[in-house]
């Protein structure tokens, strides 16, 4: 079975600093893949490499067998990779609905001239954009807040909005950067169920960076562990839990979350 996403021996250097070193990850379609590791291990850099913000110094990244390393972020997003950010990057001065619509816009196909002259196809497409975006917000419980500013939402809802927004792209692959950051145990459990539902309902492959072990262990089919930019382990959650190198570098032996 060929992989949806392949990170093939990727290295990224910033001047003297080697942020990611000979990283190999293979994500199968429909699976959930977890990426864990201490802070500074290179996890977000890896996401930035996948989404085109950085270009790999060595190695290549493939989506559905096609090389995407070094493509511009906009193009990669349109090829089917959506993402959320570690520090939420919503458009704060825009409404909840507007945030989703901006991502949904890739589904509209009218030309600039049709926009400038307010032609019928634009009016139809705009109506469609509003309807479909509202439909997307429904299951997230955000449809009622459509006209609120994104900055007015509580933290947990902002995270959900970011996920909804990424899904408006209809991506095949969804990269989540610490979706449970700042959440307590109860909220994290809720998020775990929610992400399971997202995965099934939207038929996306999830890759998530997380520090909350319960979330990662429960959700992932496979986990890659990074430390100092290098892959120190890869396998099923059970294998990772038992791996002495991982325990030494990261888990520290205790069961805490």
């Amino acid at each position: 079975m060929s992989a949806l996403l392949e990170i093939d021996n990727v290295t990224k250097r910033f001047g003297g600093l080697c942020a990611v070193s000979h990283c190999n990850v293979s994500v199968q379609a429909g699976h959930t893949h977890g990426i864990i590791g201490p802070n500074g291990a290179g996890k977000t850099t890896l996401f930035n490499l996948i989404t085109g913000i950085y270009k790999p110094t060595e190695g290549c990244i493939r989506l559905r067998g096609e090389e995407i390393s070094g493509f511009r972020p906009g193009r990669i997003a349109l090829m089917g990779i959506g993402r959320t950010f570690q520090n939420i990057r919503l458009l704060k001065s825009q409404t909840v609905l507007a945030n989703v619509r901006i991502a949904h816009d890739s589904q509209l196909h009218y030309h600039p001239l049709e926009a400038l002259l307010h032609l019928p196809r634009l009016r139809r497409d705009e109506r469609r954009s509003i309807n479909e975006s509202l439909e997307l917000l429904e299951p997230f419980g955000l449809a009622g807040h459509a006209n609120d500013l994104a900055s007015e939402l509580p933290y947990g809802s902002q995270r959900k909005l970011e996920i909804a927004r990424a899904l408006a792209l209809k991506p095949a692959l969804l990269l989540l950067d610490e979706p449970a950051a700042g959440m307590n145990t109860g909220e994290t459990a809720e998020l775990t169920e929610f992400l399971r539902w997202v995965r099934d309902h939207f038929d996306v492959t999830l890759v998530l960076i997380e520090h909350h072990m319960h979330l990662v262990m429960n959700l992932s089919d496979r986990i890659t562990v990074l430390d100092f930019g290098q892959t120190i382990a890869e396998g099923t959650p059970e294998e990772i839990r038992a791996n002495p190198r991982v325990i030494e570098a990261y888990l520290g032996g205790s069961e805490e979350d």
Partner: protein
Amino acid sequence: MDFAYIVQQAINALQLGSIYALIALGYSMVYGVLVMINFAHGDLFMLGAFLCFLIVSSLAAFTLPFFLVLLLVMVGIGLLGALIERLAYRPLRGGPRVSAIITALGCGLVIANLTLVRFPYPQPMPQLFTSVSYHVYGVTITSLQILIIGVAVVLMLGLDFLIRKTSYGMAMRAISFDVKTVPLMGIPVNRIITLTFFIGAGLGGAAGMLYGTAYPVIAPSMGILVGWKAFIAAVIGGIGSIRGAVLGGFFLGAVEVTAVSLPNVPSTYRDLISYSLLLIILIFKPHGFLGKAPNQKV
């Protein structure tokens, strides 16, 4: 085109370049600590020339030594620069960057037009210094040119010493790296920034006086015509970089003098050449020769 001609032009270029460099330093220093383009700086340069004019004409009874007037001008314009920072820029310091730039633009225009109200016509700069010409191997160099280049170089060396060897300089460089964490280390950020404006403006004022001495007719439009050229120089060198400002200043001086000394180029092309050069350089080196791209963490 013989050797003597080239040397002659080189001296002209050095003279013009040193003045541009002095002004450019003011732009770069401020950009370095505040990441802000101080559009009013060119007009402070212009005021330096006019302040010199005012000092000399009101105290015409006394024969004032050149360096005393220079000191007065530097301190005077320096204080004005610091005042503008305190009143107009500091209140905007956490806000949208655009507001600061526009405020600077506004301040510059206010200064330029107030000067225009007081001096509607260009003024001749009074002679503070009797120039002696030296003729060496077919090249004419005046003691005035030596003075201007000399003063400029001394000031630049002084600034370099200040930045590399004093605690002020270290604080200034620290602020240009990260203005948010620096106060946590006990550095009085406000005072350092005000001092930076004082020094930058002082250098600009000195440049104004030197410019007036070299090209003895001064007008309020100098701020835009000359001051903004120096801004180009600062950008070409890499705005925020002290060495870049000096490099850019001399580079621009050389370019302008060369461009105008070429046989078929009318002097009206001067501005066109300078600004086109700026554009071309920015296209290939968007942050100037020595500038660095701002890093954005994602």
